């Protein structure tokens, strides 16, 4: 069960891949390799030396000590870990996509461009926006695209010097303030009210001259729809601020309400959440942004989407060709070198094509249904409570708190998580949102079976029972995973922290005692 590190495998001289020999005619013609000595590598990299079978065994074994949606429920709140349909995997792996160079002649990639063009249009309709740009590589990248657009907006309107603040609720995803900061804004936090909505008084007290924009996710990380959204939009627009929609939680309202209709100006989407693309252990993702064609400068005929960064596909009626348009004169620029993360975008395209509007609405309905089913099953279970929004239905997720258990017997959200692992489940997102103590932010999505949700709830109840009868036991969890509880403190301790094998080797030789 103990899979060695790859550096501990193999043997001197072994190889896993046969590189072709250079053709004799090339060798003869070219002669010896003539790299200037200052730039010539003098020793081979200290990479492991494995045969092909050892490589496949190693990574096969590693994969068996990993866990995804293919293995069971992964109810990480706000991550929308839904099933990733394999039809999209097959299509995304088509050589007619994989083997395209991004700078290839546009006429030779018309099929792909047509797909991307349609996806832009569909996402615009889904969000109620006018223009979608598929460029950003992740949700946070989309946020950055969005806040840079906000920045450009105020810049083009010559008011950037006073528009210094982005307002963000205290329940927001961590990337929101980080993105705002990356775009050079000051971040103002507003608190949530007990009903889960933004505290409107607090909001009103901070919105003003200096407000460049507001970033919120709706439904919120509490799984609650922001009931004052129209009022908020009005308030923001009154101060010429841009309303930004964090699309991470779109799975809770798709087909029932659209950001564009609520007054949002810019929204990013997470293709790898709402639209079925896999998360790949942390990426790749795709974070398109969709924008209202709000007029920025009517004289120069500039609309908001002109300010956004990235490429977009346009249809050229005169030639009947799809074309890629790079960032124009007013655009914020580029966020990565090429068009976008095509693979997840193809997954999203296939997902939407498969579902149609009927299917997407149904997705939302069942995502919400299963959340409320779970919440109901967890009502009045000793040790847990469900803070905020009492009496309100949840949307895509629900946040439990293990605070009673933590307070009463010292069993924490982390312990609960480990107890779930032992039952063969992945844990919810824990300790988030920050406004809920001992939070267990849980999102099953519509692709989970009701049976698994029931088992999950049962296990949470069982954990509670164990916690109250034998509070020291949870501290020994997990026991059924490939390793026992991991020493994270040691992992971070300056004397031990080991980010690479190279550092490990030097530590073993006593070379890192100084750190």
């Amino acid at each position: 069960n103990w899979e060695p590190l790859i550096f501990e495998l193999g043997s001197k001289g072994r190889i896993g891949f046969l590189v072709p020999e250079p053709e004799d005619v090339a060798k003869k013609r070219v002669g010896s390799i003539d790299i200037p000595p200052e730039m010539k590598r003098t020793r081979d990299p200290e990479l492991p030396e494995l045969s092909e079978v050892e490589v496949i065994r190693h990574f096969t074994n590693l994969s068996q000590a990993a866990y995804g949606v293919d293995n069971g429920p992964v109810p990480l709140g706000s991550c929308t870990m839904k099933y990733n349909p394999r039809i999209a995997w097959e299509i995304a792996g088509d050589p007619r996509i994989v083997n395209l160079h991004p700078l290839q002649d546009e006429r030779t990639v018309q099929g792909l461009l047509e797909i991307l063009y349609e996806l832009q249009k569909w996402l615009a309709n889904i969000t109620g926006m006018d223009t979608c740009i598929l460029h950003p590589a992740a949700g946070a990248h989309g946020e950055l695209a969005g806040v840079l657009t906000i920045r450009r907006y105020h810049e083009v309107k010559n008011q950037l010097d006073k528009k210094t603040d982005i307002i963000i609720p205290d329940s927001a995803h961590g990337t929101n303030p980080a993105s705002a900061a990356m775009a050079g804004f000051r971040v103002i936090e507003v608190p949530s009210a007990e009903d889960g909505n933004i505290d409107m008084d607090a909001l009103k007290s901070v919105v003003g001259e200096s407000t460049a924009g507001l970033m919120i996710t709706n439904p919120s990380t509490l799984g609650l729809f922001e009931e004052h959204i129209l009022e908020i939009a009005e308030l923001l627009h009154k101060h010429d601020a841009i309303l930004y929609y964090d699309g991470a939680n779109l799975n809770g309202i798709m087909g029932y309400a659209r950001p564009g209709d609520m007054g949002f100006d810019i929204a990013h989407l997470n293709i790898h959440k709402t639209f079925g693309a896999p998360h790949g252990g942390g990426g790749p993702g795709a974070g398109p942004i969709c924008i209202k064609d709000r007029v920025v400068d009517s004289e120069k005929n500039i609309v908001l989407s002109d300010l956004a960064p990235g490429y977009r596909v346009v249809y050229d009626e005169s030639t009947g060709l799809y074309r890629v348009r790079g960032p124009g004169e007013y655009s914020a620029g580029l966020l990565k070198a090429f068009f976008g993360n095509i693979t997840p975008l193809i997954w999203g395209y296939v997902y939407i094509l498969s579902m149609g509007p009927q299917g997407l609405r149904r997705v939302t309905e069942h995502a919400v249904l299963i959340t409320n089913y779970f919440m109901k099953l967890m009502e009045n279970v000793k040790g847990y409570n469900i803070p905020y929004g009492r009496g309100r239905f949840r949307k895509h997720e629900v946040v439990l708190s293990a605070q009673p258990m933590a307070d009463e017997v010292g069993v924490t959200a982390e312990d609960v998580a480990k107890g779930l692992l032992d039952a063969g489940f992945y844990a919810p997102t824990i300790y988030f949102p920050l406004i809920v103590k001992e939070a267990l932010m849980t999102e099953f999505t519509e692709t989970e079976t009701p049976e698994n949700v029931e088992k999950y709830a049962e296990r949470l109840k069982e954990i509670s029972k164990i916690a109250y009868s034998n509070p020291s036991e949870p501290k020994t969890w997990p026991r059924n995973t490939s390793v026992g509880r991991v020493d994270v403190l040691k992992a971070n301790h300056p004397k031990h922290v080991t980010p690479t094998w190279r550092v490990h080797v030097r530590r073993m030789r006593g070379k890192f005692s100084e750190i």
Partner: protein
Amino acid sequence: MVETRPHPWIPGSTEESLKKMLDVIGVKSITELFNDIPREVLLGEDEWNRLEIGVGRPLSEIEVKEIVDEKLAKNRVFNPPPFMGGGVYPHYVPPIVKYIISRGEFLTAYTPYQAEISQGLMQALFEYQSMMAELLEMDIVNASMYDWSSSIAEAVLMAFRVRKGRRKILLPANMNPLHKRVVETYVKPHGLKLETIPYDRELGTVDVEALKSMIDNDTAAVYIQYPNFFGIVEDKAKAVGEIAHEKRALLITGVYPVSLGILKPPGELDADIAVGDGQSLGLGMNYGGPHLGIFAIKYDMNLVRQMPGRIIGLTTTIDGEDKAFAMVWQAREQHIRREKATSNICTNEALMAVAAAVYMALLGRTGFRRLAELIYYRAHYAASRISEIGLRRVFKAEFFNEFPISFNEVGVNYSVIHEKLLEHGLHGGLYIGGHYPELGETALYAFTELHSVKAIDRLIEVLGKVIREVGR
């Protein structure tokens, strides 16, 4: 038509499950669960269903595949692949790489927030970090940025944090112009300066004298790319590093990892930050993404604290009995520090890092050298052959795998040549006269292990023929 058939992707969409859940919740229909959405924005079902989304109705896989197949037939896959690089190269993808990243345990996993059940994923990422560190001879590698360009941008922002107060970065003119555009985008909101170091018109290398005159105590970092955008082995790299370090500016190097089989690794050039793209390491081209931003630093706590991205560390279980992995230095990340985070990056390119790990494991210690040599021979063979048809390389300095060819002497726009090549089923190099007007009708041709001598011979034959036909 209201779709009531159970859907394969929605287990709860059966009549039975639906009824059970509604009963337990205590509502009559699902729509009740949306009662908090203001009526003004609540969409009617018909209204929604009329929107142009997909083809307007749910489809089976079979129908989806038919539709997509028809579109993909309009793409053109070239064999041999385009003789085109510019930061993305047609490389061979070993089927094992694709196989491993198709395994659901990796493919469908999330960021390993729960360490104990994600050890395999974390070990794979740790091994990516570690193997990449060996290839680069750097100490710490993060578990991925989006791509090369955003890695440079993050490196530049990091340099400003590390050299607090300095407000200038020097970027070479012979770096990838698209990368530069990205850096500008990231840097602009912070009111910082980017200045361009010119290149030597004859050699194609960085103009070191110009650099000396530009660098000062306000310079936070100098960036250098090798092979540079013109494919040239930057033999001034070491000198550039020394000049930078003299002014306490950081040296950021961008590398094409495959070239490191024969080129000096950034670590030996004393780079503080090394960036690059893992696209060439078994990822395919994918029309430009997903690729894999490489980001590496030396082991220096001043750098570590400012480094963006996720890092997996080797540790043990609490009982000390087993080796184990955990995410380290998470305090730098936005979940905890929020607006004070070192970056907003969260979702990254983890699966691509796993792919690169498998690739690096397959090639191993000697494979990179062999591969780089093969590519070197092929590219130089091509370079030697173009003179036979009256073409010439633009620059004189030694190159690795690609080089700009001047078509100025041919007497027609390169687009004419390009067109003719397409007619013969070949996709030529990348026109760079737009980014470098001073070079005129010039195209950057790249070669890899997928361009055999046979394929190169064909290119030369066709190019020669085309030039004879259309040239003056």
